[in-house]
Each structure stands twice: as structure tokens, then as C-alpha cells.
């Protein structure tokens, strides 16, 4: 089990403007490289971060038009895992009511989007979503 001490922490506030998710992915890359995560796993973290940001940009309707992110390297003495928190102050949603997308249905459907959470869950080790009327927080982790 990964140690819980925070060895390094970076916070980032993103404006909801096109392609700002790339800035977040660069911060994630820097943190993952610091903890010597493998390149393939770093790529997976980058992609999950991009998806989490896009979800917030597209669906949160946050009044402040911002996404608040925290990147934490956790471990005892050595880095063991990277925990990324993505928070918005938007309208929230009920995660249990989100239907899992599947390709057969999407090929027939007019709307082919809605893959973000499935991709995040597929690429990260642990994903926790807390959502309510004051916003949504996604906490996702990946071990080194």
C-alpha cells in the first residue's frame, strides 16, 4: 500500500478556455517524471487528466469558469503514487445515473460523445468522484 505522506504538491487553477487541458497534462507529466514513472504510465496519466479537464469544461457550468487541480506525489521515503484532484464549482451530477457508453450503441446514436469517465477509469488505478450542488471533485491515482 502506498504511503500517505505528501512528498511534493503542485496546485493549478485553469481557466475554461480551449486546449487549457494541455497545460494540466504538462504539469501531470512533470510530476510523474519527478517520481520516475514509466513513459507509458505517464502517457496514461496525461490522457486521464485531459479527460477530467474536458469533462469539467464541458459539463460543470461552473459560475467562475475555473478548474482547480492538485497534483500530489505520495509515498513514505520514495515516491509511490501520484494523486490528482480535479475540482469545479459547477452544477454537479449523479455519477450513478451516468450510463456507461458502449461502441455498438454509440455507432447508432447521433451523439457519440460521453466517454470521459470510462477512459479515466480505464487508465488510472483508482478513481473517486464526489459530486453535489456545489460542484464536482474527481480524485484519481496511479502508482509508480
Amino acid at each position: 500500500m502506498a504511503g500517505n505522506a505528501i512528498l511534493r504538491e503542485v496546485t493549478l487553477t485553469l481557466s475554461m478556455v480551449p486546449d487549457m487541458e494541455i497545460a494540466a497534462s504538462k504539469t501531470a507529466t512533470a510530476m510523474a517524471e519527478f517520481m520516475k514513472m514509466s513513459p507509458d504510465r505517464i502517457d496514461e496519466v496525461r490522457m486521464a487528466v485531459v479527460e477530467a479537464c474536458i469533462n469539467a469544461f464541458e459539463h460543470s457550468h461552473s459560475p467562475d469558469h475555473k478548474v482547480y487541480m492538485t497534483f500530489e506525489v505520495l509515498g513514505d521515503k520514495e515516491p509511490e503514487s501520484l494523486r490528482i484532484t480535479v475540482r469545479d464549482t459547477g452544477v454537479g451530477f449523479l455519477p450513478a445515473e451516468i450510463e456507461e457508453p458502449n461502441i455498438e450503441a454509440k455507432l447508432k446514436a447521433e451523439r457519440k460523445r460521453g466517454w470521459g469517465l470510462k477512459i479515466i477509469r480505464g487508465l488510472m488505478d483508482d478513481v473517486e468522484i464526489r459530486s453535489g450542488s456545489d460542484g464536482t471533485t474527481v480524485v484519481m491515482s496511479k502508482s509508480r
Partner: protein
Amino acid sequence: MTESLNVTVDRRDGLAVVYTEGYINNQGGEDIARVAYKLLDEGYKVLLLNLAGTKIVNSIGISILIEIIEKMIEIEGQLGFCCLTPTIEKTFHIMGLAQYARIFPDEQSAVAGLRA
């Protein structure tokens, strides 16, 4: 700050290879779709997307690729992908794209596989 995608095409006998370079986001996906639909209008029914120059995609961009897959199914054509990063390939498997579009490790095997 807008990430751009460059799309180029190599038309070959009965097959067209579409090369991408950059981020496949909403705009990038639309750029690929525009090129793909033009190729279909020209009569190409076999398309290969070579993503060697793309290191990051997002689900909005991939959703537009699903529209292209839907179109290829309609016309009984073939769409293949090659030179994907391991993460993009994993993402395509998570989404199920690999059931409807063939994925090849390199362009040579892709061209041979799609022509077979």
C-alpha cells in the same frame, strides 16, 4: 493557446493513407473527418489513419473518428489505424474501437492487411 493538427494524405492505388501530426481534439477530429469524407467522395473505400505524429488525443476527437467508422460501415469500406502510442491504442480498446477498425503496429503491415 490552440493546439493544431496537420493532416496530410497519400493517395495510392485503391487506398489512401491519412497522416496526422499534433493533438486530435474537437478541431483535429473535424479536420480528419473533412479529409476522410473527401476521400470517400473521390471513391476511396479503404482508409488508413497513420497516427505516428499524434501523441495525444481526447475523447471528443475520438468521437469524431467514431463518426468516420460509422460512415465506413455504411459504405462497406475499411478503416485501419497504425503507429498508435500504447496509450492511444489502450484507449481505443477501452472504447471498443478495435472491434470496428483494425489496428496495426506499422504502416507496412497495415497496407498489406487492408489490401488482403
